[in-house]
C-alpha cells in the first residue's frame, strides 16, 4: 500500500465531548462543533470516534473496515472467519455527499474470538489476540484497513472536511456518551481514508494535532515492547503508547501524562520528595516515551476521555464543563458553539491532563 509510506504530519482541529454520567447523545453537536474550526482543516481528512453506539452488541468486538477492493474484502472475511465467530456483519450506512469522494467499501463486523484459536495462543490475552488480528490485516492484506476494533464503539473517518464526513456517515442518527472529532490539515501525505483521524485500536481512539519530533525514538521504544508501527503516524504511536502504559503497565492517566509530557528535571526539584522520586523513576525508565515537540491530543476509551498538551504547550487546548458534560477542544469557540453557558472554562497547562471518567457504567 504505497499510501502507507511516510510519517504523517498534521496541524489540525480537535474536539471531544463526554457525558460523564454515561447518558448518550446524538452526533449532531460534535459535527456542529468541529465545523466551526473548518479553517484548521484543509479537506484532506476528517473523522469521529463514538462510544456507546452498539449497546445491543456491547460484548462483541466491532471492526470498522475499509476495503479498497472486493478481493481485499473477501480475503479479510476469510481470515476473520478462521479466527472469529462472525456474530453480525453489515455495510456501514452512509449518505451520498458531493464533497466526499473516492470512498472505499465501508463494512462493520461484530466478532467473538474462537475458543480453539484462543487456546492456540494461550499466552495472549483476548485483547492481544485482537491486536494481533488487526496488525495482520493492516500489514498483510493489500487494500484492507481496520479503522476501529473496540467494543461498543466505532471510528468513522474519511477524506474530506469533518462536517461533510459526519453527514456522510449519518452520525446524527447515532447516540454515544463520548464523541471525539478531528479535522485534518496534513502537510505531507496525500489524504487517504485510513490515514484520517481518529486512529483506533481496541477501544482506544486518538485524535491528535501536532508533530512529534521524538517520533523516531518513540517508535523504536515501542519496538522494544513488541509494537511494530505500520502507518508511520504520530496518532498510531500515541495509541500504542497509551495501550502499553495504561492497559499493559497499568498506569493511571495522571502518571501517563507525566511520562508523555514529562516535567523538566529542575522542575522536579520543586516537588515533594515522594513525588520527585516517582517523577525521576518515570523519566529514567520511560525517557524514550517522552513525546517531544508540539502536540495536543484527545484520547478516549470506553471509560474515559483525556486531553493532553506537550510539555511546553506548543499547541492549543481548551477545556470546559457543563453539568455532567466535559468538553475539550482546540478552540474555545468550538466549545461555546455547542455549550453557550459552560459552568467552567479553562486552559490546561503544558503537560497537565484533562481527564473525564465515566461515573457509572451506562445501562
Amino acid at each position, binding site marked *: 500500500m504505497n499510501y502507507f509510506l511516510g*510519517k504523517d504530519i498534521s496541524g489540525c482541529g480537535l474536539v471531544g465531548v463526554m457525558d460523564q454520567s454515561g447518558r448518550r447523545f446524538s452526533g449532531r453537536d460534535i459535527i456542529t462543533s468541529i465545523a466551526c474550526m473548518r479553517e484548521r482543516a484543509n479537506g484532506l481528512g476528517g473523522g469521529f470516534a463514538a462510544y456507546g453506539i452498539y449497546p445491543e452488541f456491547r460484548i462483541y468486538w466491532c471492526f470498522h473496515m475499509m476495503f479498497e477492493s472486493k478481493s481485499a474484502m473477501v480475503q479479510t472475511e476469510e481470515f476473520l472467519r478462521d479466527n472469529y465467530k462472525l456474530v453480525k456483519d453489515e455495510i456501514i450506512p452512509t449518505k451520498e455527499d458531493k464533497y466526499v469522494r473516492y470512498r472505499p467499501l465501508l463494512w462493520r463486523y461484530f466478532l467473538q474470538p474462537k475458543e480453539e484459536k484462543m487456546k492456540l495462543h494461550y499466552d495472549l490475552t483476548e485483547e492481544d489476540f485482537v491486536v494481533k488480528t488487526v496488525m495482520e490485516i493492516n500489514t498483510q492484506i493489500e487494500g484492507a484497513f481496520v479503522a476501529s476494533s473496540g467494543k461498543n464503539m466505532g471510528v468513522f473517518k474519511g477524506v474530506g472536511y469533518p462536517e461533510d464526513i459526519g453527514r456522510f456517515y449519518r452520525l446524527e442518527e447515532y447516540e454515544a456518551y463520548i464523541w471525539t472529532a478531528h479535522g485534518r490539515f496534513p502537510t505531507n501525505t496525500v489524504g487517504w481514508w485510513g490515514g484520517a483521524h481518529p486512529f483506533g485500536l481496541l477501544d482506544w481512539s486518538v485524535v491528535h494535532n501536532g508533530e512529534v*519530533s521524538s517520533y523516531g525514538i518513540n517508535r523504536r521504544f515501542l519496538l522494544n515492547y*513488541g509494537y511494530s508501527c505500520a502507518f508511520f503516524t504520530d496518532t498510531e504511536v500515541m495509541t500504542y503508547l497509551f495501550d502499553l502504559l495504561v492497559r*499493559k503497565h497499568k498506569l493511571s492517566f495522571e502518571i501517563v501524562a507525566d511520562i508523555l509530557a514529562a516535567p*523538566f528535571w529542575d522542575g522536579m526539584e520543586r516537588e515533594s520528595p515522594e513525588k520527585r522520586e516517582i517523577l525521576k523513576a518515570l523519566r529514567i*525508565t520511560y525517557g524514550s516515551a517522552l513525546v*517531544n*515537540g508540539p502536540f495536543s491530543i484527545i484520547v478516549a476509551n470506553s471509560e474515559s476521555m483525556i486531553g493532553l498538551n506537550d*510539555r*511546553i504547550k506548543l499547541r492549543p487546548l481548551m477545556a470546559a464543563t457543563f453539568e455532567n458534560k466535559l468538553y475539550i477542544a482546540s478552540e474555545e469557540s468550538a466549545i461555546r458553539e455547542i455549550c453557550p453557558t459552560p459552568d467552567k472554562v479553562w486552559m490546561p497547562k503544558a503537560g497537565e491532563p484533562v481527564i473525564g471518567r465515566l461515573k457509572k457504567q451506562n445501562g
Partner: protein
Amino acid sequence: MAKRSPPTEFIIERDDEKCIACQVCVRMCSNDVHSYDTETDAVFSDSAKCVGCHFCETICPTGAITIGRNPSEFKLNANWNAQVIKNIIKQAETGGVLLTGMGCDRPYPIYWDHIVLNASQVTNPSIDPLREPMELCTYIGRKPDKIEIQITNSKSQIPNYRLQTLIPPQLKLETPILFSAMSYGSISLNACRSLARAAAEIGTFYNTGEGGLHKELYRYSPNTIVQVASGRFGVHKEYLEAGAAIEIKIGQGAKPGIGGHLPGEKVSEEISSTRMIPQGTDALSPAPHHDIYSIEDLKQLIYALKEATRYKKPVGVKIAAVHNVAPIVSGIVRAGADFVAIDGIRGGTGAAPTVVRDSVGIPIELAIAVVDQRLREEGIRNQASIIAAGGLRNSADVIKAIALGADAVYIGTAALVAMGCSLCQSCYTGKCNWGIATQDPYLTKRLNPDIATQRLVNLLHAWSLEIKEMLGGMGINAIESLRGNREQLRGVGLSDIDLKLLGIKPAGEAW
C-alpha cells in the same frame, strides 16, 4: 645491501634571523632534537629525531621554529606508498613489531561525515536554548521494564502515590559525555588529576583504565568509573568501593584481542604502589581475562563485582567493536551488565602494534546502529545503557552517535588534544613533551593540572552548548527524545546497505 634507516618524517626549519639562541627548545625537547653549540653560540636541530609533537614550535619565544613534513618523496606508487616502504625498512632494521600510539589513522570511511541532522521548519517550532530549558541530563544504568505505582486513596480527594519499583543504581551525567579509560601509567598523574577534576566540575565521569586508582584521586570517587581489566592491576576492595561504577574491560578499539604492556621503566614507585606490582617490572595485561573464557564466566565476574559492592553501583563491560558486536552485546546485557561501552576501530591507545590498530575492528557508527537495533528487537534495550567510543571528534559526532542509539559517549583522544596532545602517535616512547603520556618527572610537571582541567571543562562546556543548539533546532528539548531517534538523521553518499545497517533514510527522503 648497506644498512639504512628510514628517511626522516619531519624537517625542522629554524629561522636564523629570529633564533636568539635562548635554548628554550634545547631544554624542552625530550627527543634531544635541538642542541646548543657554544663555539658558534647557535642552536642546531637534528630532524631525524623529531617526532613532530610541535612542542618546540609552540614554546619558541620568537617563532623561529617550523616543523614541516619531509618533502623527500619516493616514486609515486599507490600500492607501495611511503608509509609502507618506511615500515618495511624499519622492520628490516629492527626485526620487531611496529608500535604506535593513539587511534587508527588509515583513511577508512568516516560515517559521521556522511550523516546529516534535521531541523524544524514551519510545521513545528524550533526551540531557542538560550531562552528555554534544554535538557542534556542522562542516566547510565539498567532501567526496569516497567514502573509500578501503588495508588492509595487518602481522605483528601488527591490520591496517594507510592513507588513500588526499585530503580537499579544509575550514573547521573549532566552532559552525555564521559572521559574514556586512560590508565595512570599510560598517562601521567597530572593528566589523571586533570580528567578527574574536570569530570567533577562538569558533573560527568572519568575512567581509571586498568592502572588502579592513585591514593590522591580517591577524593574524586563520586566521578570515577573504576576499571577491572585482565591484569587486575590495583584492584582491591577499596578500589571497587571508590568507583561510582565498575567497568570490566574486555577489549579496546585500538587493539581488539590484544593485551596491554606497560614497560618496566615506566613503573615508578608511585605506579608500582598504585598497581600493586613490583617497581620496575613490566605490567602485562593478558589478551583475555584468564577467568573469562566464555559468556557465562563473564556473568560470574559481573555478579562477583556486584556482590562485592552490594549491588550499589552499576557494573558495565567494555568491548571493542568487532564483526559480531551485536550478538556479543546482547549476550553481555543478558549476562547482567548495566552498561556496555563499545570502542570502535578509531579508538586510541598508549601503545599498540600498528598493524592491529590499523586493521582490526569495525567503525563505531555501524556498531552503535546494529547493537541498538538488535537490543530493541530482543526487547532488552532498556536493560543496559550503551556508551559509544572510538574517535569522536566534535559535538556533531556526539549528537549523531546519540541519535543512532548511544546513551552517552566516551572521549579520550579529544580530551588529550584539549590538554595539548598533537597526535604525534609516539605515546609508547614515554617521552611525551606535553607531559601527558609519560612518567618522566622532567616531563610530567609540564602539564599543569589547573590549566588542563580548565581546558577540559571548556571543551565539554562548548560541546554541550553546541548540542543544545542542534537539539533546539530539531525542536527537541530533552536529549532522551533524540537518543535512538534516527528519523532525525539522513545519510549522504552512503550505499543502500550502509543506510540499512545504520537504520537511517537517505537525505532527500521525507518522513
